[in-house]
């Protein structure tokens, strides 16, 4: 996978070359190369769908639908732009956009569940609360902002690749990222104010 900060074009990596070779085999109906592609890209697509929708089951459906489209489009697929990874991310983003029109985003258990019933340390509680606040703020962002932040900062894709996935120019993506960060910070401060307010109320009741 290309790393953020790449040049003007999407560089061709060994992975993208392998993807193209595997896609030719998938186009012939071979399932083993398809399984390799699923294992290689499945988790990233799942995370993107999860961050975009905030729903684990929705994310699974989206990933499955994405690979189903990959299987169907394999005979006519041509490597270009961001390669197969970019194509998969674009399909995933489009599917998330389609689902978002029908479903309300619910920020849910992206935080790992507790392994046991032992009480968490204060630090862990704060970390979990901070992440939940960030996820809620992310979920409250407009979809375009959320998509740019998820692709560039969460998944660490290059601006060139993210711009290709979002069908934007690199300049437009950079401007979009600035606005997205600004709004996310505003939402986050609001969330943290709410958290502090809740903590204060709980402390007063305990005293």
């Amino acid at each position, binding site marked *: 996978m290309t790393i953020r900060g790449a040049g003007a074009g999407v560089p061709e990596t060994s992975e993208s070359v392998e993807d193209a070779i595997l896609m030719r085999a998938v186009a012939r*109906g071979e*399932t083993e190369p*398809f*399984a390799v592609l*699923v*294992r290689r890209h*499945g*988790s990233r*697509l*799942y*995370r993107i769908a*999860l*961050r975009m929708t905030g729903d684990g089951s929705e994310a*699974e459906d989206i*990933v*499955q639908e994405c*690979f*189903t489209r990959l*299987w169907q489009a394999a005979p006519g697929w041509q490597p270009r732009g961001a390669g197969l990874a970019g194509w998969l991310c674009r399909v995933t983003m489009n599917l998330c956009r389609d689902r978002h029109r029908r479903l309300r985003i619910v920020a849910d258990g*992206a*935080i*790992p569940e507790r392994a046991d019933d032992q009480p968490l340390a204060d630090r862990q509680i*704060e*970390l979990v609360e*901070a*992440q939940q*606040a*960030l*996820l809620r703020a*992310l979920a409250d962002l407009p979809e375009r902002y959320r998509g740019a*932040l*998820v692709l560039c*900062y*969460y998944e*660490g894709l290059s601006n060139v690749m993210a711009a290709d996935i979002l069908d934007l120019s690199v300049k437009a993506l950079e401007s979009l990222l600035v606005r997205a*960060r600004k709004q*996310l*910070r505003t939402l*986050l*401060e609001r969330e*943290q104010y709410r958290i502090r307010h809740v903590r204060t109320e709980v402390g007063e009741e305990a005293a």
Partner: protein
Amino acid sequence: MIEQQTRPDRDPDDDSDLIAALAALPRPEAPPALLARIVQSVEPPAGAAAAPPLRPAQRLARGATWGAVAAGLALGLILLLGRQAPPPSAAPPPGAQVAAQQLPAAGAAQAPLGKTETARSARLAAAGPVTSRAAAGRTGPEGQAPLISMDRPASPPAVAEAETVPTVQRGAEPEAATPVPQPVLAQPAVDEAMPRLVEAPSFGPAPAPRPTASQRPPMGFRPAGN
């Protein structure tokens, strides 16, 4: 973490804390069951080379098709056999029966079947010179097509049908000078087939005829006692 990095004294253009917080979010892996399900969803089923099992509707349609084909073949075979060789049990037309009854048995068994015109010309040739008036009316001049004289009553349709029956046998005429008898047995068959008028059942003696106007009593007259 984020709480510390969103202090009011931070550089407003520095979003590194936010970027770091986004990058530090949990990164769950796709469930293995999901990946397995995706791979299995495109794998061809075992024995994909064999034809898939037919659904009940397809099975029914295929069976109906074969049934129709078999029925058509059987019908065509029956029609073909029926045209080439009529069944021996089939009864000949009434006219043919009459001709066979009036012909002598000698030599009749060896006579092959022939067409109508051929049989008639052969029969006329064997009959020799025409001596009877009826036969003269049936034979045209110079052996041409037979003519029907105006003074000879036309043969009934049943007789004509009997003369054109293809079962006429060559050399079966008993005597040349004897005119061919005109069978009339076919007519009763037609008559029997015709519906007959049934007389209306009688219900006692016929009623007395209605009196004429002159016999009726004048209007207003009432016989005594009524």
